[in-house]
């Protein structure tokens, strides 16, 4: 069963399809079998206790972890020119060298990640951080990339910080640069790994507002988050991950108010009443 089974908008084609994804670290099976699909323009929020595997799912989608089994299929920005690429991890046996470099490259091309701890390049300015991927990796013309990068920075209110180094920015500003860096790669799928959990509470709002705007613009996203209110507002679908499986998924308003599964209920209760 996939999270989009109950999605009312069945006409939209699946942009991302994950089937039977498995991953172990040593003896610890972090992902037992993950199935999910995300339609174009939809936002999937993954919630769940720490250690449940939700971040590992996200990392597999960007090729930062190589799964032991299962498949990931992702289509390109434009169906006509970007045929879907499928990675079958059963053949790779959890080893990076088992996945064809080109396939892994395509997966990374099509998805872009925003990290919990921003992971900006400290030795590069804000503008250089944003331009590095498009210019050095994608080999797009520098002038075009710079104009686009500046427009994006302007848009998140950081145009004046173009020549600053990351250490000169607040956490919230750094994370907005992190988001711009991801957008500048022109991905088809945006991945957010707890994008606000390293931020001071008063800085969370700006980042969440930006993500919400991007969702409204039609970006397809998978977001790992602890911000239930945010998930309720932004996500088209929420999946509760626990013990390496998707325990329950569905419409966020419905599921967060009336969870079907006991484990989901306990988790939500702990989040809402921490003490």
């Amino acid at each position: 069963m996939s999270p989009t089974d109950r999605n009312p908008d069945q006409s939209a084609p699946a942009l991302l399809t994950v089937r039977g994804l498995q991953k172990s670290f040593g003896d610890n099976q972090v992902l037992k079998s993950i199935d999910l699909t995300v339609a174009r323009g939809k936002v999937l929020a993954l919630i769940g206790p720490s250690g449940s595997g939700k971040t590992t799912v996200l990392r597999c989608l960007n090729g930062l972890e190589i799964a032991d089994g299962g498949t990931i299929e992702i289509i390109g920005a434009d169906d006509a020119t970007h045929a879907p690429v499928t990675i079958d991890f059963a053949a790779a046996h959890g080893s990076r060298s088992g996945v064809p470099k080109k396939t892994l490259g395509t997966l990374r091309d099509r998805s872009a990640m925003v990290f919990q701890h921003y992971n900006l390049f400290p030795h590069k300015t804000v503008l250089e951080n944003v331009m590095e991927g498009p210019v050095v990796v994608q080999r797009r013309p520098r002038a075009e990339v710079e104009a686009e990068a500046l427009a994006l920075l302007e848009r998140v209110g950081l145009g004046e910080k173009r020549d600053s180094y990351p250490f000169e920015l607040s956490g919230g500003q750094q994370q907005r640069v992190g988001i711009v860096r991801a957008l500048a790669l022109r991905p088809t799928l945006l991945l957010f790994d707890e994008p606000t959990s390293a931020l001071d509470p008063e800085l969370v709002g700006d980042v969440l507002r930006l993500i919400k705007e991007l969702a409204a613009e039609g970006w397809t996203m998978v977001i790992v988050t602890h911000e239930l209110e945010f998930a309720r507002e932004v996500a088209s679908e929420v999946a509760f991950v626990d013990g390496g499986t998707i325990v329950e998924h569905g419409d966020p308003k419905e599921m967060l108010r009336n969870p079907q599964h006991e484990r989901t209920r306990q988790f939500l209760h702990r989040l809402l009443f921490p003490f």
Partner: protein
Amino acid sequence: MTESTWQLLLDSLWPLIHGAITGTIPLALASFAIGLVLALGLALMRLSRRRWLSSIAQVYISIVRGTPLLVQLFVIFYGLPSLGVVIDPWPSAIIAFSINVGGYAAEVIRAAILSVPKGQWEAAYMIGMSHRRALTRIILPQAARVSVPPLSNTFISLVKDTSLASLILVTELFREAQQVAAFSQQFMALYLEAALLYWLICLVLSSGQGVLEKRLDRYVAH
């Protein structure tokens, strides 16, 4: 000290400085440059997932660090000829010092690479970089900052160690001092003069280290 001793010190100053300019300094620079390239290769081998590559580097580093530099120098200059390999004093010295620097600096560079947070590799991969590109554009520039102080130590040690080359007939600062001392029998004065010159060179290097650190510090919170 008598007036003649002062005169001797003054007269010998040029030969000693000449020895530093034509011997000590180029010897140290050449060996350090070659040694660094060697060290980077060895550090990457040590970090490689391929066990055999890592083992080779480990054995190399262990031998270099576990044997005296003087012995390494003598093996190359006095030992190899018995195997039919005759190398001139200068190349012998450069080979020995490069090998030595390679061993020590490899561990410095390895530690510096490991000190860069894992998230930097991940961000580099995320934007689509290959391992090699991530290393050269993202990781090494950050590792460079970390490795400046310990590599400066290595370089300063090397400058002083080049005095050992006098024992395989390379004309450098210390050998000049030895020659003047033997001729004049003013050992204390000449060797102190040599010591003073080494110290001055190292002072200049230390201030150079400061400048370099400051330059590389521009992206770090103060």
